[in-house]
């Protein structure tokens, strides 16, 4: 059960949110990308065991998107930051091993 800190509304129950998957995926260049590049952009995931940068939307609240740094083993939320911002360095948050 997650208690998610929405940057605009504060901490709210997980049921108010929708998961948006991995963050910071940049779209393949439609002029240059070959099939492999499209496959990488569309389907491949980092899926780390440990800290992941991911998108969430506060769908039953302010309906705004934001990013989380979260540990996929402990479920600890290390940082929250806005869309368009770079992820904070995980070392600054004593990232779980």
């Amino acid at each position, binding site marked *: 059960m997650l208690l998610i800190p929405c940057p605009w509304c504060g901490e709210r129950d997980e049921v108010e949110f929708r998961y948006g998957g991995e963050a910071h995926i940049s779209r393949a260049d439609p002029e240059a990308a070959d099939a492999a590049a499209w496959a990488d952009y569309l389907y491949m995931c980092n*899926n*780390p065991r440990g800290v992941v940068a991911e998108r969430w939307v506060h769908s039953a609240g302010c309906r705004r998107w934001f990013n989380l740094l*979260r540990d996929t083993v402990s479920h600890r939320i290390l940082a929250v930051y806005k869309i368009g911002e770079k992820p904070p360095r995980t070392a600054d948050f004593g990232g779980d091993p």
Partner: protein
Amino acid sequence: MNRGFPAAGNSSTLSPVQHYSFPALVHRALGRHRSWTPLWRKAAPRPRYRVVIIGGGGHGLATAYYLAKEHGIADVAVLDKGPIGLGNTGRNTTIIRSNYLWDESARLYEHSLKLWEGLSAELNFNLMLSQRGVLNLAHTEADIREGRRRVFANRQNGIDAEWLDPAAVKRFCPVLDTSAAPRYPILGATLQRRGGVARHDAVAWGFARAADARGVDIIENCEVRAIRIVRGRVAGVDTSRGAIDADTVAICAAGHNSVLAAMAGVRLPLSSHPLQALVSEPLKPVLDCVVMSNTVHVYLSQSDKGELVMGAGIDAFNSYAQRGSFPVIEAQMSAALELFPVFSRVRMMRSWAGIVDVSPDASPIIGRLPVEGLYLNGGWGTGGFKATPGAGHVFAHTIAHDAPHPLAAPFGLDRFTTGALVDEHGAAAVAH
């Protein structure tokens, strides 16, 4: 079926001492049951194997068994970071069926179901396969169209499938509420009579015993920490119990497939999620089939111990924690009560989660990875248990021939580049 003592099986390599039979039971009983031996050796890793399989769940053990039995490759080690069978093999809701929509999937899962039907005899181990029938309920007009279409598609593929109207559903499963009262009334169902359940732990133990008898080393508490690659080719693995050289490394690690592939520098289209299940207190026999519903989203059956075994969808977020969030349990409980108001006072005993590797098209990935000698059997997501013997069978063939088994060919990693997806999301009666 082998009934003799000593072993009379055509394929068994079990010694007379190991073989299970009624005379063997009498023999052991006369010796006060002191002479039973463990089902498999506690093997220590040797420095080198022809094939190393990472993951000692049902799929990995089945792969090892079929490599030894069908392809004469017994120089195989199955590595597991814990004891075998304690991952998703021991955590699923044990449902077996083959009523998938698309031809590629239907053939693969039907191949598996056919293997299930002879497996207890072949392994000389009771897997308690119970073909009690699987109902997939329809609650909307769209469900009816999907269900009937799937019945027709299944029949085209030689798979038993029936469409039941609400009265027939009530006759087949009287405890279901087929009245018009529910918010989503039952408007019909598909039925696969050959579907059912099996004892999941026995599947791991039976394959482990049979593989071990053929010379496979099952190495428990042996965590893979690195995959060694020399000049673009797999050379072996580094483990918590030392380095092991291997010509071929086969990844069969379900939720941890991405982590292992990353050790070889390979990115996979998989995301790992918790899939929760729960059981009730034991009840008298009340539900003698498997009931699945996509629309209200729960699937349940009653175990031989009398517990109601329930599951539903994954938790939406990525996780490796083997635990999920309570709202998911709450949603599946409310779905169960929608279908079975009679269970409203049943208490739940335990809940747990397994980590499943979900692929973009809800179909597995079986075959070579872009490193020579490295293979993957994964991406089974929420539905891998039913495929255990079939997956092991086609994966062993793929490894032994270094070319995909015909049934596995549509499920290569290259389909994400070519675009030839086998999209079973919402198509396969799968309650994702």
